[in-house]
């Protein structure tokens, strides 16, 4: 149960595979955040339109 890294730089280099590892995690996180935001936006717009329909 020991920490695997002795410095931030070593952590970021990922034993020479930093580009591959962080490229995987970075894109995954970005896509998940984008998808979540677009779903929330779609719901917000649908809710607004329901409000406009009610006012008419």
């Amino acid at each position, binding site marked *: *149960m020991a*920490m*695997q*890294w002795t410095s931030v730089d070593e*952590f970021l280099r*990922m*034993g*020479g*595979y930093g580009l*591959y*590892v962080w*490229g*995987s*995690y970075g*894109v*995954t996180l970005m*896509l*998940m955040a984008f*998808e*979540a935001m677009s*779903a*929330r936006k*779609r*719901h917000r*717009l*649908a*809710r607004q*339109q*329901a*409000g*406009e*329909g*009610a*006012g008419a």
Partner: protein
Amino acid sequence: MTHAPAQPLRWNTYAAPSRFYPMAGKWIPWFWAAAALLGAAGLWTGFAIAPTDFQQGDAYRIIFIHVPAAWMSMVIYLVMAFWAVWGWMLNARMASMYARALAPTGAMFTFVALWTGALWGKPTWGTWWVWDARLTSEFILLLLYGGYIALTEAIDDPRRAANAGALLALVGAVNIPIIYFSVKWWNTLHQGSTINMGAAPKMASTMLTAMLLMTFCFWAYAFAVVFTRARAIVLEQESDTEWVRALGAGQDQ
């Protein structure tokens, strides 16, 4: 309709869009909280505790999102096809709406599986991509999701869109066992299953723990996002009903 007297809970209680909408609204924050906690625990286990692999070095750490994303891509497709066909056969609107709400999330996880696979393949196999059975069938899964989304979006009438989508989803479901068993049926560059039923996992327990935590994180995320999108679809398709108008007028939560 929203203020109808309480009915006994039945298996189809949440088949009514007017009942699904407030229920999902209450659950979504809890799914987000679970996703955040499980994700934090999974990343901590995967990066701080799990040891460096003796063969692959630290490149193997991609597994903690690659395998869960690949699992999600297949499971979500089966759930999507199930609800699509259910909605088609029984003319159940909510089921068809679940199916359409699931598709983008399934497509996203399929892309993540392919993307992280490419970034893992380059340092370990020496190539980003190869047209072997596993990679090709997973790529076809992405096309199936894309086809399903394009088809259902192209048809304006919700019921006709749902029925056409259900047929495509059903036919495409044959691809799921092909993906799953491809590493057994064909000689693929892609490695065999990491976890097999009835056999000890071929990985350290901390690695397995990290992978399972990330899988549960993705599950919680998928529930949160799919419910959010399903709520939007409910409002879009039920805009002419009394309860949605009441909602819009601010009479209900």
